[in-house]
């Protein structure tokens, strides 16, 4: 196990060391101490390593992640796992705004609540939130799954493209062009798999599914250039 103290050794040294790990590295487990809310911890990691951060972080933790599993034993600031490509990011506490924004792939699991704009412009990432999410979540979501075990805030799924949203609790309001849609067996099995990966024991039957009504201007072929 590699141990790194951010206060003693600095953030740049940490990110350099993590980014230098190749796919076949034998330094596969890292423990980061004293994060103290620092920004951009463990960004741009592209090897299948396990990184555990012992405490809360600031902006953009685990951004652009590929292959790595990053676990944060605390809460995270804005933009956790922003533009993640693959791998897994697990937040044991809460996440601030735009968690998983623009993510292309991988799994972002938030054990607490996520605030506003969770999964904004998501492009294939799977996001599972065990608690609640704030307003304008999945805004302009293009693909991927947003699973919310608690409640969703205002304007859920505004201007959605093809992302799927599953909410177990209440939805304060739906955004423009977002509607409740029927569940089907393929979606339910996908949802079950995400819950299993997240080790969350709730029934898939309790969830409602939301998606795009495809009525906005950009969905009409007559408006194409």
């Amino acid at each position: 196990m590699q141990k790194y103290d951010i206060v003693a050794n600095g953030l740049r040294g940490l990110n350099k060391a993590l980014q230098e790990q190749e796919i076949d590295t034998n330094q596969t487990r890292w423990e980061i101490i004293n994060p103290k809310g620092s920004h951009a911890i463990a960004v741009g990691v592209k090897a299948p390593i396990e990184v555990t951060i012992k405490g809360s972080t600031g902006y953009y933790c685990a951004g652009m992640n590929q292959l790595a599993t990053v676990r944060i034993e605390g809460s995270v600031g804005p933009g956790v796992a922003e533009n993640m490509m693959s791998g897994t990011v697990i937040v044991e506490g809460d996440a601030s705004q735009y968690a998983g924004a623009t993510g292309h792939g991988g799994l972002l699991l938030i054990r607490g609540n996520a605030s506003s704009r969770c999964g904004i412009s998501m492009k294939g990432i799977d996001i599972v939130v065990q608690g609640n999410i704030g307003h304008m979540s999945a805004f302009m979501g293009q693909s991927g799954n947003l699973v919310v075990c608690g409640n969703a805030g205002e304007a859920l799924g505004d201007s959605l493209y093809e992302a799927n949203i599953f909410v177990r609790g209440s939805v304060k309001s739906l955004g423009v062009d977002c509607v409740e849609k029927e569940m089907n067996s393929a979606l339910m099995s996908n949802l079950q798999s995400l819950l299993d990966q997240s080790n969350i024991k709730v029934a898939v039957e309790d969830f409602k599914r939301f998606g795009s009504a495809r009525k906005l201007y950009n969905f009409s072929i007559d408006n194409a250039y």
Partner: protein
Amino acid sequence: MCGIVGLFLKDQALKERLGNLLEGMLISMTDRGPDSAGIAVYGKPKSGRIKITVQSDSSDFDFKTLKDELLKKIDESIILQRNDSHAVLTVNASKSDAVRNVILNSSMNLRVISEGESIEIYKAVGEPRQVASRFHLSEMCGSHAVGHTRMATESAVTTEGAHPFSTGKDQCLVHNGSLSNHNSLRRRLIRKGLRIESMNDTEVGAAYLTWKMQNGDSLDEALANSLRDLDGFFTFVVGTKNGFGVVRDPIACKPAVLAETDQYVAFGSEYRALVHLPEIETAEVWEPEPATVYFWNH
């Protein structure tokens, strides 16, 4: 951008450490606002006395001239405590308007930046670390305090544009964001008799809250009304003689973190601002909800 910090003590055993704790919080927000910094500290009120914080553009200003003039024209009992380019005058409550008039009508080019039973404000252009050290923030005591690090957007980088703004007795406001209807609101508030001295948007926000409170609102009611009448982006932290309030606009782009323990309530634009506080590891830490007023009172 901009950084906000605030500390409201529930346990007065910490009051000797208020300035010291706030200094660490303020400096941690330097990269959110490196161009100016300011603080409002609420100390112990003295019965029948009012504190007036006066500010000069120059660290070399000879405040003795001011004191002599005030002693001659107003009162024998005025106390003047100089702190770099600022001075706090402690005067009999009945004389505060007269003192203010002498200051504003003199040729000394001084500004009155706060007035009240317990509030003192210090603010200047410069990095937060320099500003804190210039005014000896770490030595200050009190029951609550707010601080601001500024990255200017709506008005120039000047001492007048630095936060906190105080437009009513013992009231102050710090702001992260920008208001878009401040020009029209400034005209309306000036017509209603409010004193607004800069072109800064936040000062208009402060004057709005003062106006609401003059008309019977409590601080939490005034903050709730601000959500309807102020247009733009804001995370506000407000101080009054006994209270400390937080509100964010409904879009809530501007970051905010609150922490509470048995000893204090703390606000930071980011969690980084709170990491040096005692027992922060076991504090309840949360992000304030949009369009929701949070308020604590002694």
